[in-house]
């Protein structure tokens, strides 16, 4: 749990000692101390494990979702550009798809950086902000939709 948020997540994951931990792997009761404080380190934490417990799985699923979206954008953009160029025989028809492929490529290239920042924010209890990446992904998808609409309406 982000310190001071006052919210426990759905359920709260049981810890390995039988007690209940907050979603951040920290103590469920805020009075027990903020995450990252000296007394909060779980004594049973094994070497090489993520200190934020169950949130690690959420960030992992989110990482995979970003990879899926970036790959779909890049592949869809390239495929759409190929189809548009073959059927319509003009460069401008393929342009939105090329833009989408570029957005997908940038998103894929930023995958590691984004995930590292996310894990760092989770670890330090900072707010998560991926607005720039979200806008880039949105722009890419809007470009695909524009390209698809132009193709469908102008297809021979």
């Amino acid at each position, binding site marked *: *749990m*982000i310190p*001071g*948020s*006052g*919210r*426990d*997540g*759905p359920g709260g994951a049981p810890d390995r000692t039988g007690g209940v931990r907050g*979603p*951040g792997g920290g103590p469920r009761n805020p009075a027990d101390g903020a995450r990252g404080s000296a007394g909060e380190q779980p004594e049973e934490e094994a070497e090489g494990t993520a200190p934020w417990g*169950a*949130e690690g799985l*959420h*960030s992992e*699923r*989110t990482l995979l*979702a*970003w990879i*899926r*979206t970036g790959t*779909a*954008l890049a592949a*869809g953009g390239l*495929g*759409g550009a190929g*189809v548009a160029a073959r*059927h319509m025989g003009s460069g401008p028809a393929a342009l939105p798809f090329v833009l989408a492929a570029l957005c997908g490529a940038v998103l894929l290239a930023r995958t590691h950086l984004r995930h590292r920042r996310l894990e760092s*924010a*989770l670890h330090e209890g900072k*707010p*998560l*902000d*991926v*607005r720039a990446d*979200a*806008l880039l*992904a*949105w722009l890419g*998808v*809007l470009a*695909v*939709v524009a*390209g*698809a*609409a132009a*193709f*469908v*309406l102008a*297809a021979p």
Partner: protein
Amino acid sequence: MPVEGKEPDPRFTLANERTFLTWLSTSLALSAGGVAMAALPRDVFVPWVRTALAVVLVVLSGLAAALAYPRWRQVQRALRQEKPLPRLALAPVFGYGVAAVAVLALILIVLSG
């Protein structure tokens, strides 16, 4: 995100982010379906039916894409303010729209075979 309300549980924030990405993936899949439908050989479907199905798919794709970002922001705002999540009024449009296209395409395939 505007700083208003409390920072929500990161699990909710991440779930909202994944939902946003799923909307984008859905939009991409619908666009791919529309382009594939429009690129079919002329003799597969009646041309105007093929174009109509493709247009429906691309319109649904545009709706999904247009909704995705504003909805992500709305949900995040609701989470921060600990308010109920906004309703998705267009959910039936997507469900029935895609189902109608699939059923019509299936009927045309069966009739042409």
